[in-house]
């Protein structure tokens, strides 16, 4: 049976491969970055087990590693490698040769995940493939492996080539790949240091917290406002969740967490459509498309964003309670 800890070790091994590929090419900062990041994946369970047993140094060392990752991220540059003509021609030829079959392996990722999730109803030995905890994530990992084998066949390439392409994509994302994980970590730290309670207390001074609608509106507009200020809905999520979503909406008013989380995040995305702080989406394209007004893209998005914000608030009001 495949368990989630096996999957984490595979992720760790992939990060080690990426680290060595970068070090060998003389790119020391990304090499070090992926190498340090591999450690919590290879030894994650040991670190948590040591903590349970009262030994804190492995967790402390990991904490120091996280600080180091932050420092390395600040020193790394997002450089997209130049695309040479030969590579462009080769891709064109392959696209014409393989055609739409290129999409099939990519389709296999969501498809196999969902199939495996339904596999508890399948006869043995299929039902034994996936462990009981974190079922979706284990199914996802198996689906990725299936998709990779499928892609190897479709493109007639080799496993090392696939690892090389995976490393190329990882390098192009650089520290941005780690940001969601760091923000989730920050959410945990905020919860442990009482940030949520402090925000909830402040919110209680401003709005009547015994009323669902007031709490919901405070949550929705807080998500939008924080996202507009920071340019990133991911960063707004742990703050608003810890302050309003969890203590007031879920614990006090019994809101459904899955719906509140999904639509709450998408409410933040409405803010992303409105803010120049989300430069990659709103300012960079204005430059790329040579618009006379650098806020031209945002202007084109305002009506959609506000309409969708209203829909999201209505959906949450109807569905979460």
């Amino acid at each position, binding site marked *: 049976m495949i368990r989630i800890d096996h999957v984490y070790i595979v*992720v760790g091994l992939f990060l080690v491969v990426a680290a060595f590929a970068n070090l060998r090419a003389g790119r020391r900062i990304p090499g070090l970055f992926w190498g340090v990041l591999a450690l*919590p994946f290879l030894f994650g369970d040991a670190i948590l087990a040591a903590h349970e047993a009262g030994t804190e140094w492995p967790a402390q060392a990991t904490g120091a590693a996280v600080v180091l990752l*932050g420092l390395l991220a600040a020193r790394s540059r997002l450089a997209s490698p130049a695309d040479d003509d030969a590579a462009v021609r080769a891709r064109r030829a392959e696209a014409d040769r393989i055609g739409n079959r290129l999409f099939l392996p990519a389709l296999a990722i969501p498809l196999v995940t969902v199939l495996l999730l339904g596999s508890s109803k399948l006869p043995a030995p299929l039902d034994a493939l996936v462990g009981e905890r974190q079922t979706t994530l284990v199914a996802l990992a198996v689906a990725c492996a299936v998709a990779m084998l499928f892609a190897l066949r479709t493109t007639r390439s080799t496993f090392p080539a696939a690892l090389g392409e995976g490393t190329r994509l990882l390098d192009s994302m650089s520290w941005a790949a780690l940001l969601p994980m760091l923000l989730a970590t920050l959410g945990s730290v905020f919860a442990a240091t009482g940030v949520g309670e402090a925000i909830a207390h402040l919110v209680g001074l401003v709005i009547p917290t015994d009323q669902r609608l007031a709490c919901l509106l405070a949550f929705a507009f807080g998500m939008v406002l924080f996202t507009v200020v920071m340019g990133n809905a991911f960063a707004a999520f742990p703050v608003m969740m810890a302050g309003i979503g969890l203590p007031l909406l879920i614990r006090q008013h019994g809101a459904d967490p899955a719906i509140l989380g999904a639509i709450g995040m998408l409410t933040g995305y409405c803010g992303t459509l409105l803010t120049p702080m989300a430069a990659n989406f709103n300012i960079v394209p204005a430059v790329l498309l040579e618009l006379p007004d650098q806020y031209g893209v945002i202007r084109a*998005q305002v009506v959609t964003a506000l309409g969708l914000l209203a829909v999201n608030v209505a959906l949450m009001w109807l569905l979460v309670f």
Partner: protein
Amino acid sequence: MSYWPLLGVAVVIAGFVLRRNPALVVVVAGLVSGIAAGVPVGDLLALLGRSFVENRALLLFVLTLPAIGMLERHGLRERAQDWIAGFRRLTLARLLIAYLGLRQVLSMLGLTNVAGHPQTVRPLLAPMAEAAAAREGIDADAGTRAEVRALAAATDNVGLFFGEDVFIAIGAVLLIQGFYARAGIELEPLEIALWALPTAIAAFAIHALRIAWVSRRLRRKERPR
């Protein structure tokens, strides 16, 4: 009840507004909120490390990279561009609505990077939208052409944002799941991802209507400004 840990939130806001590296800002914010709450340094590092390990599911999406990277090397993006180029005969409104739908579906399947502003909007969608506008006799002054290009870029953003959250391996869904798991609420990522569908449908409907309105307004040349 102490308000000092809120300094961590202040660090996040200040760091993002001042455009410091987001990864570093987040780490510093965690340290600041811990120190402000009076947590000893040793315990704070342990808390940071333990939280990081507990949230490691958020990096699972890297397992999709070898397959997708290899498909890209063998022309996945070029193939997606061929599809978009196939919309060449459509009217302005139909072109942008077809692109919106395609972008949303590709994002739902986790293929967020086969399209985008540098990959498809600048080389394909924007010039095709301008050409479609010209065929419909829309006045080709510089302001109108810029508005058409801006609408093309906006269409790409809406399609990406309100498609990707339906895919379970995306950072947003795993971030939501990880946050709840730490708070003692166990959810499957699929449960969360499916609840992104109503908003995805609403986003398609609202933006498609807007595209239709804007293209009608441009045809009638009732342009304010």
